[in-house]
């Protein structure tokens, strides 16, 4: 068990695994996402209440879903950084934070554009929207703090503490639609119930969520590899790897 754990923490081992996984993640992710989007845009029926504007859901929900689960993954990695001082966990947090920020921005932006024809307003300070905005600022905070401290170890610890403090926001986002009266509609997918929309709508939505998940996996691998190359530049295996690429 501890051996596996140690192996998982080894940047060299991760680099190899990531290289083999990446093509699959990208191809499968792009295929699923495109299928979901084309199905949702062209073939899914109109919503009887919202008309065609609801078709924004096929990118809004995947972005929002990923924005939150990326943060949860970062929180788990932050805990690992603090408890076991695993380098790879900190590499994950720093590599992935900008991706999380972009996804959160996309969720907010597509939500605002969807809100205009549906609610009659681009923005309203309600619980769901405000807590998502706080999530965006948390991502910015993590990026800024990581960049501000040059010492690798103290930077890793400070970032990990910030990520863990910010995780309080996640349940607030999740339950905001139930705790408060808000304009935002309740969650589309719940583990315990069947979705309230017909299958022609939720199947493509599920496909695009899975697709974006895989594409995130690809981006995470790519960016973690870059961070590893930069940090481990003095080790022999990185030198050999860089040299091999040259030829």
């Amino acid at each position: 068990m501890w051996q596996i754990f140690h192996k998982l923490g080894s940047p060299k081992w991760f680099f190899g695994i990531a290289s083999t996984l990446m093509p699959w993640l990208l191809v499968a992710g792009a295929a699923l996402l495109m299928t979901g989007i084309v199905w949702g845009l062209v073939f899914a029926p109109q919503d009887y209440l919202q008309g065609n504007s609801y078709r924004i859901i096929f990118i809004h929900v995947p972005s929002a879903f990923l924005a939150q689960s990326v943060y949860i993954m970062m929180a788990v990695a932050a805990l690992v950084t603090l408890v076991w001082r695993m380098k790879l966990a900190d590499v994950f947090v720093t590599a992935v934070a900008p991706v999380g920020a972009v996804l959160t921005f996309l969720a907010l932006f597509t939500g605002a554009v969807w809100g205009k024809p549906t609610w009659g307003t681009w923005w309203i300070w309600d619980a769901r929207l405000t807590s998502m905005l706080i999530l965006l600022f948390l991502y910015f905070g993590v990026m800024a703090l990581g960049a501000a401290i040059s010492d690798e170890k103290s930077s890793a610890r400070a970032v990990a503490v910030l990520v863990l403090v910010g995780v309080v926001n996640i349940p607030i986002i999740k339950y905001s639609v139930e705790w408060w009266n808000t304009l935002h509609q309740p969650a589309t997918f719940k583990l315990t119930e069947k979705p309230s929309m017909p299958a022609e709508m939720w199947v493509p939505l599920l496909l695009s969520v899975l697709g974006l998940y895989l594409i995130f996996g690809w981006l995470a691998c790519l960016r973690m590899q870059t961070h590893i190359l930069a940090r481990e530049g003095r080790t022999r295996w990185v030198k050999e790897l860089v040299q091999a690429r040259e030829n």
Partner: protein
Amino acid sequence: MAFDSFSAFLAMDGHGPYVWTCYAVFFLLMGVMTWWSLRQRRAVIAQQRRRMAPTPSADERPAAASFTRIESSQD
């Protein structure tokens, strides 16, 4: 198919601008994120390569102040 014609598909019953703006921004930002990540990776590899480049040997090194020049100036 949910639409009768391609123009109906583009118009989306008046919701076209909203829907297409969202999709455009989504693909734009995901594309920029990918491009930026690939560029960062290339930059890091190039940087490591520069750092590893063998120091040029004595005869390859550009001549610093050499005696030949001093000699020619004395003529």
